[in-house]
């Protein structure tokens, strides 16, 4: 059996007092890609920040265990060592992840120096190899350029190279393609697929784009108001969705030459919503009178396919 690389149990994450992630449990196996999909504000980015230990997101309850280490219980130094070398993150806006007016070459060298891993000429060739493994044909030119001189797609591929430079085992991806046009999106996705087959990397992908989840993820989880409402094999979740929210999200995806996509009415609840009952109740097209108080823990609907609500069972 494959080992779990990252496990979260009833994870609760907040900024200061307010919780943005209420109760998230999943496990990510070595070599697996798991997508977490949901609307803006559902807590998916907060989840990634907490795992990476950046942006002030604090684990306030439950556990997140990476390769046997409880992230919340680790000493700050050990945690910093983990972030970057074992766990790496790619952000939505590739331009903002780098200094725009310094060459990639110097920024990559600094990245190695900050970890005490710069070894002169050996490191230079390591950086070049890292670029070559990305399938960037003109790596030498990109290394000499500054981020402000390159397109968004190119910068995002450089960000992938930076994230991979220290050889992490887990890559956290926060909307990696949302700021790019569709053809650049495709290039980045192909890049990530190649990396994955080369290195056996595990990825946790956060996106609102279900098409991206379909293209990249083995399993997909759907998040609403800080909780997972559905989790299963990507094909199960996207083709045989159980939860009414997943169905609503799928109706919002435009189909080539199809009718107008259907948006959800209303807006998601504000952070710090009540901890009990179904948070989707107010917007749910399949809501029944008893739903407001109903228990919303994930249940297994079919083997490996979990949902917090069986009303919309396929």
């Amino acid at each position, binding site marked *: 059996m494959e080992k779990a690389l990252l496990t979260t149990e009833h994870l609760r994450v907040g900024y200061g007092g307010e919780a943005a992630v209420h109760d998230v449990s999943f*496990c990510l196996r070595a070599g697996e890609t798991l997508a977490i999909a949901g609307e803006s504000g559902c807590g998916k980015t907060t989840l990634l920040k907490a795992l990476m230990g950046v942006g002030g997101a604090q684990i306030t309850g439950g556990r997140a265990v990476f390769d046997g280490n409880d992230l919340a219980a680790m000493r700050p130094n050990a945690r910093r060592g983990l972030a970057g070398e074992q766990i790496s993150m790619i952000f939505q806006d590739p331009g903002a992840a780098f200094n725009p007016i310094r060459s990639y070459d110097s920024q990559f060298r600094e990245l190695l120096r900050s970890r005490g891993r710069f070894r002169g000429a050996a490191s230079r060739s390591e950086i070049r190899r890292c670029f070559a493994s990305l399938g960037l044909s003109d790596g030498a030119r990109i290394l000499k350029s500054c981020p402000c001189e390159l*397109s968004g797609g190119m910068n995002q591929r450089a960000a992938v190279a930076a994230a991979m430079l220290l050889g992490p085992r887990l890559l956290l991806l926060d909307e990696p393609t949302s700021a790019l046009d569709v053809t650049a999106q*495709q290039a980045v996705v192909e890049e990530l697929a190649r990396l994955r087959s080369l290195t056996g990397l595990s990825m946790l992908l956060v996106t609102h784009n279900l*098409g991206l989840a*379909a*293209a990249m993820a083995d399993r997909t989880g759907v998040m609403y108001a800080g909780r997972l409402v559905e989790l299963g094999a990507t094909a199960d979740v996207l083709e045989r969705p159980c939860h009414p929210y997943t169905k609503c999200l799928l109706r919002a995806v*435009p189909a080539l030459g199809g009718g*107008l996509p259907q948006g959800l009415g209303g807006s998601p609840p504000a952070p710090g919503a009540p901890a009990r009952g179904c948070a989707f109740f107010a917007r749910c097209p399949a809501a029944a009178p008893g739903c407001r108080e109903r228990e919303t823990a994930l249940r297994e609907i079919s083997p490996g396919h979990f949902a917090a609500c069986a009303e919309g069972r396929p």
Partner: protein
Amino acid sequence: MNKTEPVLEAAALTKRYRRGSLAAEAISQVSFSLLPGEILGVVGQSGSGKSTLLRQLACLEKPTSGRVMLCGRDVTGRQPRDVCHEIQMVFQNAQRSFDPRRSVGASVCEAVRQLSGLSGQAARERCAQLIRLAGLDPSAADAFPSALSGGQCQRFAIARALAAMPKVLLCDEATSELDVSAQAQIVGLLAGLRDELGLSIVFVSHDLALVSTLCSRILVLQDGAVAEQGPTQALVSAPRSDAARALLAAAWTGRGPQFSRPSVDKPPECVL
């Protein structure tokens, strides 16, 4: 105006940017026409000239050559204030298109006062009417842009654009920064406004799947030139240009995986 007479026409529009001895043609010889109540999709990769084209149409820049005809008059090289009653623009980042230190309602109200000549109570009533037309509750108008979601902000931006009661709305990647649900709502709103007000819309996006759901006709730009234009169904089912084929291949519809994924046949160690 005659129903079949175009509200907006571009004839061989070309825009060349110069800096010292360097010159780059951002759009070259772009021609199209837009009928009343029609939604035209403009698609292309980043850098294909989509935004440059819109800036020429809204008279925010002076084209190097070619002509822009708006409601039957030649507006080439005119100032934005000469055309703002007929043509309005909605931008990609709605939040940044508002003054961060004023409530969105105040911004919409100012547009009403500037563009419709109303003042006082009449302007406030018109403002509330526009906000309702954009599918929002006027009570949300007291919020500042930073307190609103991207989708709500974009609705206010559309309300502001409608203050001038324009004939043509130019949407520059108006849904690209929104999540799928908010994107679907905005697209539905635009389709509704077309039906209700007879608005003509130029909808610019890089997402061909999205454009194909909203627009009856699509124009594909590549390197500043028109690679192809035609009815949506024909373009989607039988694209003739490489640019359209590339965009079609990259359009993800969420209906199935386009990339081969390694299959996972081993059972998980833990239940979830």
